[in-house]
Structure formats: structure tokens, C-alpha cells
């Protein structure tokens, strides 16, 4: 840690992990409901649990990205964060808005479209809040002692994510138009601009952890990220197949869906190549494991499993089934959760001065959570395929099919329990680091 | 064979494929024949202009494999 204000990152990471744990709790509520034990139905009905589960995901990932930005930007711009107090104000207000939204869901106050359930007045608060964040980070970048590609890509990703929040706030009378723009919010985030953020963080970590020249890492990473970005934006066409848009979306969506896994594969090969090429042996092996794990799992989850159901012929049957849940879980975990974890694993020793990078908790945390998540994906896949065949191909009634796939959710809950153990180990390790301290000021020891 | 010879050969292949396509439009073998010529051009550019003839065997295999697969799919898929 070179700058005092990098410590702010910790205060974003801690609540992010807390919200992740809460997200998992709601996941379990739904898992048990799917198994037939919908005991909390009167307090937390399934639709509420689902809204909370997905919204918490978005909120904790955004907190993670914001934390990562507070750590990376000072180092890249070579100066302190412009207004540290504002950062705390922004953090607290962001959390307040998030908690209010979740309370609203339990009181049945929400908007109907999935992922965009947050009540309208809160939308404006989110916008104001994100503007504060962008102003703070933007001012720091703008007045920095140096400009790096990494800082600019990271900032552009955050800015574009904020801009793409706006289409979700427009109301349309036309169902097709409404669906068309609904995909611009969360979907264009995950397929497009969040990949800029992920690319920026990945680049920062690879430079620090492998010791390969910044010039080489940056040049090629951003070409690959650019490819992923463009294929992701046009690949959003795979949500436009049968909603009433012109036919050419079938071709655009199909072709760019085929490119997406290849671009992710490129990113995985790239990260492994750099790790192999790097001469420096950074002692923080856990951070490197999470970083490379992110590159590989984002290919498996986002790329490969995404492609499993993005071709028009397949998507005709699978849209909106548990097959989507299969892809969604491993994609968010591999591409975004793991990059945030990698950033935490890298920055915590430097912020606290404690070198807990090779503990049993951190190693087992990685492997157990990943094995658990892959197993969950398998359970979702089996349930999803059964659902598609029974409900969509043979035309059995929706609720009857849900009864049929109940056993698969037993497997899912077991796998989720394993995943949870892994996450708790990570959280335990995080807590053991303690608070960040100014005594830890100084460059990354591996760099000197 | 230097670049100029490669270039002239590429032009010649283009001329042949256009001639065949315009002269015998009804021929059943036309699509595979024209695409085979295109694949040869593809490999010429890759190996000569892009200097892949000096590359590692795996890269060469990638390019030849791509060209062969492409042609095979095309023959199978064409009407």
C-alpha cells in the first residue's frame, strides 16, 4: 500500500462480503423452496427471495468494484484519493439505499421487471450516489501524476456501467421496446462494460503478480478485452431472438454468441501465458490463484456455458428455464465474484501488513468454493434440461414439472453447502487480517 | 517462390475461379471447386505473405486444419 486512502477499499470489501453471505442465505431459502420445503412462504415468498438474491449479487459486486477502484486508482494515478471523506459518505449512502430496497421487497414494494425491481424513487438515489463515486474517482484520475491505460479502462468501465443504468428507468408502452432496453441494464453490464472493469483489475493484478512489463500486459490484454467487449455487446442479440425485433438479430446474436466463448478462451490463454512468462515469484500465491482461476472459470461459466444455450435453435426452448440459472451462477462466480476475491486476496495483506496469504483457510477457501460452485452448476444443468424436456417439449404443466425436478435440488443444496463452506473460509481469513493500518504504508515488498 | 510470384499466382487463381463460376454456373461441382481454389489462396496468403511457413508446426497445423475443416463443412452443407 503506497497511499493512505487506499485503505478505503477495505470498507467497501467488508460489507461486500457481508452482503454475499446474505445473498447465499436467500439462495438457500429458494433452494429449500424448490425442494418442497417452502416453510418461509408467508414471510419471504419465492419472488421476494429471488429479487433479493439477484439484487444483492449486483450490489455486492458493485461494492467490490468500487473497493477495487479505491485501491487501484491511487496506485495508478500516483496520488491520494481526491476526497476521502466523500468516499465514506458515498459508501454509507449506497448501503442505505441497498438496504432500503431489500426491505421494500419484503413489504411488496417494487417494480415488476427482473433485475430492475428497485422502486423508482430509489433509482434516483442510486444515480446520485454513483455520480458521487464517479466524481471522486474521476477527479483523482484526472489530477493524477500519471495516466495509465489501466486506470482509464477501469474508469471508462465504471462510467459506462453508470450510463447503462439509465435505459432501465425509461418507461415504454410497447412490450418489445421495453424488453429491448431492459437488456441494456444488467445484461450489457455483464457482457460489456463490466468486462472493461474486470479487464482493468485483471491487468493491474497481472502486472503486480507476474512482474511482466506493463507495456506487454496492457497492450494485449486490452485487445482481448476489446474483443470480449464487442462480442458481448453484439452478442446481446441472443436475447432478442423471439421478442419481436427484426430477423437479422438471429444472425447477429448467433454469430457473436459463438465468438464470446472464444474471446473468453483467449483471455484465459493470455493470463496463463503471462503467468508462465513472468519471472517474478510474488509470494502472494493465493491472489495469483484467484486471478488465474477467474480467467479460466469465466471461460467455462460465461463463455462455454453461455454458448450452451445462446444459439437460436436451442434458446427457443431454454429461455427463462433453470438452464439460465446454470449459466448465470458459474458466469457471475467465474467472471466477477472471483476477480473481486482476487483483488481482496491481493490487497488485504498490503493494507493490513499481515501476511496471511498462504494459510489453510485461504487455500481451502479457493478450492472448496470452486468445487461447490461447479457441483451446483451440474445440479442446475440436470434440473434445467429435465425442465426443458418435460415442460417445453412434452408440454407437461409448469408446476407438475417443478415437482418432478425437486430431487435435483437436494443435490443443489448439498453442493451449495460445500460452496458456502468455501466462502466462509474466505471470510474467516478476511476477518483474521484485521483492520487496515497506516503502519502498512510502503510499496509492495515484491516490487522492490 | 518470392512474394511477387505468390502474388501473380493468387491473381491467376482468382481469374480461374471467376472464369469457372461464370462459364459453368449450373455445374454441380461448382461450389466445392470454387471454394477449394479460395482455400488454396487462403493458405498461400497465410504461409507466404504472413510468413507462417517459418512458424511452428502447431500453427501450421491450425491453419491447414481450419482450411480443411471449413472446406469439408462447406461441401457437406452446400445444396
Amino acid at each position, binding site marked *: 500500500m503506497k497511499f493512505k486512502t487506499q485503505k478505503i477499499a477495505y470498507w467497501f470489501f467488508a460489507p461486500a462480503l457481508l452482503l454475499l453471505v446474505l445473498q447465499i442465505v436467500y439462495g438457500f431459502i429458494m433452494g429449500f423452496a424448490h425442494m418442497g420445503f417452502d416453510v418461509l412462504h408467508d414471510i419471504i415468498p419465492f419472488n421476494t427471495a429471488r429479487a433479493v438474491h439477484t439484487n444483492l449479487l449486483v450490489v455486492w459486486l458493485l461494492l467490490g468494484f468500487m473497493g477495487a477502484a479505491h485501491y487501484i486508482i491511487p496506485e495508478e494515478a500516483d496520488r491520494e484519493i481526491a476526497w476521502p471523506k466523500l468516499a465514506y459518505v458515498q459508501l454509507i449512502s449506497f448501503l442505505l439505499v441497498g438496504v432500503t430496497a431489500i426491505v421494500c421487497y419484503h413489504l411488496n414494494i417494487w417494480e415488476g421487471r427482473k433485475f430492475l425491481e428497485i422502486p423508482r424513487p430509489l433509482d434516483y438515489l442510486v444515480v446520485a450516489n454513483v455520480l458521487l463515486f464517479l466524481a471522486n474517482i474521476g477527479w483523482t484520475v484526472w489530477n493524477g501524476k500519471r495516466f495509465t491505460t489501466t486506470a482509464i479502462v477501469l474508469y471508462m468501465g465504471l462510467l459506462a456501467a453508470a450510463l447503462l443504468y439509465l435505459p432501465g428507468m425509461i418507461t415504454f408502452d410497447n412490450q418489445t421496446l421495453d424488453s429491448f432496453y431492459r437488456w441494456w441494464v444488467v445484461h450489457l453490464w455483464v457482457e460489456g462494460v463490466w468486462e472493461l472493469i474486470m479487464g482493468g483489475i485483471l491487468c493491474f493484478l497481472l502486472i503486480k503478480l507476474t512482474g511482466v512489463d506493463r507495456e506487454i500486459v496492457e497492450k*494485449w490484454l486490452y*485487445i*482481448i478485452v476489446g*474483443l470480449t467487449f464487442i*462480442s458481448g455487446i453484439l452478442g446481446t442479440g441472443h436475447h432478442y431472438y423471439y421478442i419481436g425485433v*427484426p*430477423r*437479422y438479430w438471429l*444472425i*447477429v446474436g448467433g*454469430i*457473436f454468441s*459463438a*465468438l464470446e466463448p*472464444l*474471446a473468453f*478462451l*483467449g483471455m484465459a490463454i*493470455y493470463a496463463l*501465458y503471462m503467468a508462465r512468462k513472468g519471472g517474478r515469484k510474488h509470494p502472494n500465491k493465493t491472489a495469483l490463484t484467484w486471478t488465474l482461476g477467474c480467467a479460466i472459470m469465466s471461460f467455462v461459466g460465461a463463455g462455454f456455458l453461455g454458448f450452451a444455450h445462446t444459439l437460436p435453435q436451442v434458446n427457443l426452448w431454454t429461455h427463462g428455464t433453470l438452464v439460465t440459472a446454470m449459466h448465470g451462477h458459474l458466469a457471475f462466480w467465474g467472471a466477477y465474484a472471483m476477480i473481486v476475491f482476487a483483488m481482496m486476496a491481493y490487497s488485504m495483506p498490503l493494507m493490513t501488513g499481515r501476511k496471511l496469504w498462504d494459510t489453510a483457510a485461504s487455500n481451502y477457501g479457493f478450492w472448496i468454493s470452486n468445487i461447490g460452485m461447479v457441483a451446483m452448476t451440474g445440479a442446475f444443468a440436470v434440473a434445467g434440461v429435465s425442465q426443458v424436456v418435460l415442460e417445453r417439449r412434452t408440454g407437461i404443466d409448469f408446476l407438475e414439472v417443478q415437482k418432478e425436478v425437486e430431487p435435483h435440488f437436494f443435490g443443489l443444496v448439498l453442493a451449495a453447502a460445500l460452496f458456502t463452506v468455501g466462502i466462509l473460509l474466505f471470510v474467516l481469513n478476511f476477518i483474521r487480517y484485521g483492520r487496515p493500518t497506516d503502519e502498512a504504508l510502503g510499496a509492495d515488498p515484491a516490487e522492490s | 517462390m518470392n*512474394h*511477387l510470384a*505468390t*502474388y501473380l499466382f*493468387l*491473381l491467376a487463381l*482468382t481469374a480461374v475461379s*471467376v472464369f469457372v*463460376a*461464370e462459364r459453368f454456373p449450373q455445374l454441380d461441382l*461448382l*461450389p466445392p471447386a*470454387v*471454394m477449394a481454389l*479460395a*482455400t488454396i*489462396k*487462403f493458405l498461400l*496468403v*497465410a504461409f*507466404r*505473405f*504472413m*510468413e*507462417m511457413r*517459418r*512458424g*511452428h*508446426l*502447431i*500453427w501450421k497445423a*491450425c491453419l491447414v486444419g*481450419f482450411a480443411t*475443416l*471449413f472446406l469439408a*463443412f*462447406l461441401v457437406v*452443407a*452446400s*445444396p
Partner: protein
Amino acid sequence: METDAPLRPRLLEPPGGFFIWMLVVLELATFGVALIALVICARNDPETYHQSRLLLDPRYGVANTVFFLTSGYFMAESVRHFHQSDRPRARRCLWLAIAGGLAFLGLKGVEYADKISDGQTLGSDPFFTWYWLLTVFHLMHVLVGLVILGVLLRRLSTIKSEDFEAGGVFWHMCDLIWLLLFPLLYLIF
């Protein structure tokens, strides 16, 4: 061997560098999938594709192929001169390569104007949907390639050898794609 290339080629260091070739493979795979999909679609509706194909003027396609091959030839020559440290010749060849690319763009513009004035646009029939999507995506690569060539030209005196090669490989990749695109769209249906 006429240049300083290593005698035993190494997997991780193809001419132009590892990542540009990874990009080439990704791009080729994507365009390859698209072209195969086009042929499969055409099989279900051969008459429409045949009638619409006849509306394209193969002379445009042939001329553009010639432009592109010429441009590619000069690009290859430019890289050769660059390796022999003959910067003035490398520069001249690079200019000619750019000129070939611009000629391609110009003719493509004329052809597009032609098609639009005839009312054959993106949505008019399946063949033209493919025609527009594929050629426009290819055209975007050409535009990016021209920008890259411009950068090479500006930095000719300082650029590293591998980066120069990589720029050349990108330009040839546009060539590769066009070589497969041209017969499929203009000749065989």
C-alpha cells in the same frame, strides 16, 4: 533463410507474436462459423439465395479482390524491406498497401450506394441480410486495419520489429477473410 528468423521455430513466438495469431485464429473461427451458417441457411432456400446473388455484380467483387491482393503483396514486401532495414522502401510499400485498402473502401462504398439505391438493404431478404452483415463486419476490420497501418507508418523509424509484423499480420487477416467471403457471396449460389 534470408532473414534473421530463428532456425527452430518456437511455438510461443510465431512471426508477429503469439497474441496476434491468437486473435487471427479467433477471428477466423468466428467468420468460419458465420460462413458455414450462411451455407446451411442457403440450403433451405436455394432459390431466393440464387436470385438475390444474381443481383450482385461480381465485377465489384473481383476488383476488390485484386485491390486486396495487391495491397497484401505490398504489405508483405514492406515487412521484408523492414527486416532488411531498408526503411524508405518499407515506407513506400506501406503507402501502396494503404492505397490498396483505400481503393477497396472506395469501391465498397460505390457498391453499397448501388445496393441501397436498388432497395436491397439489410432486411430485404435473407441473402442480403447475410451480405450486409458479413461485408460490414469485414469492412470494420478493414477500417481498424487501416488505422493500424497508419500507426505503423507514423512510427516506422522507432517501432519494434515484432509490432511491425503484428500490424502486417492483422492486415493480411482482413485479406484472408475476404478471400473466403468473396466466392461465397459473389460466385457460388
